[in-house]
């Protein structure tokens, strides 16, 4: 990112990073987390859970993009996905 004037606290402020977790057999494949993640981190995978639904996965090249905003957790109707602060 280019700054017009370098913020004094640039070294101290870090964009939050998230680590994603899933409880696979709760997912009903609605696609809400995939469609509405503001960073486009998730996509549908080929993997099928016990109920026969396709699970979300982390899209290629998006491994470090989750910002732990928690939106996927709130919108998931099945309490199947959430994030925690990552490294």
């Amino acid at each position: 990112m280019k700054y017009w004037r370098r913020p004094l606290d640039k070294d101290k402020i870090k964009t939050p990073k998230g680590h994603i977790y899933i409880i696979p057999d709760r997912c009903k494949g609605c696609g809400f987390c995939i469609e509405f993640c503001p960073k486009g981190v998730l996509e549908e995978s080929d993997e099928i859970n016990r109920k026969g639904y396709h699970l979300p996965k982390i899209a290629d090249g998006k491994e470090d993009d989750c910002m732990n905003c928690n939106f996927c957790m709130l919108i998931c109707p099945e309490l199947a996905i959430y994030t925690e602060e990552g490294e």
Partner: protein
Amino acid sequence: MSAKGANDKGRIETVEEHPLDHILRQDRLPHIWCPGCGLGSAMTCYAQAIERVDIPLKKQVLLSGIGCTGRIAGYVKVDSYHTTHGRAIPFATGLKIANPELCVTVFSGDGDLFAIGGNHFLHAARRNIDINVICVNNFNYGMTGGQQGPTTPVEARTTTTRYGNFEHPLNLPHLAAALGAVYVSRWTTLHCRHLEKSMEKALQKRGFTFIEIICPCPVGFGRPNKLGEGLEELRYYREKSVIKNDASWDEMVLHMRGEEPIVVGDFVDTERPTYLDLEEQMLRAKGLIK
């Protein structure tokens, strides 16, 4: 936590528990709601809100009437009442009057709260009973097979309006505001973060609060009205929602078709003495209590 899945590329790390599991009755889950139904999102927002507010879970009570939305009282692990159809508000009123320490919330459907239960809403809001009413509006009676109800928009198709609905629907925030509710807001289930914050606000607010949640019911409303499955209906919300806190009553009317916007926001946030405030004030003035 087990981490068996983390090696495959892109695979999300697998675990067995969710951070909000302790707020829900695990013995009753998984819930009965259809894939693509928004009720699960609404319940998650509520679980997050009751965990975040500074009110002990032991003092929180949740009530519902009957319907798909009505199941929520059975899933959340606070003291709860799954009451008869339309009667959650009278139960809630009784609870609050008998034990003013409690934080009392009613979570129910449009049919339950505004068709069979409409009269109770009227009088609880008028009296400013210090309870919170959260209505999931999916524009139909989801549980019983998608019949027309008091919020079904004009022209909408349901199993009982095969040629389109000829009735004018209720405008819920308008109604709540006119009755004197001290806090009135409306969000869709796509506005999770706003919705969760509004719930926190309502829980902490003194007086009668009302939140309307616009929610996909693909089975009873989405499919017959060409809004499609849950995901497509949420895309429609994204396209058509406008946040407008100072919306006029006319602007709040929902059409759910064509180019008409879905106006959402925090419409009312005010103060008014509650029923119990007035009782105490008047009895004290007459020297009947100290």
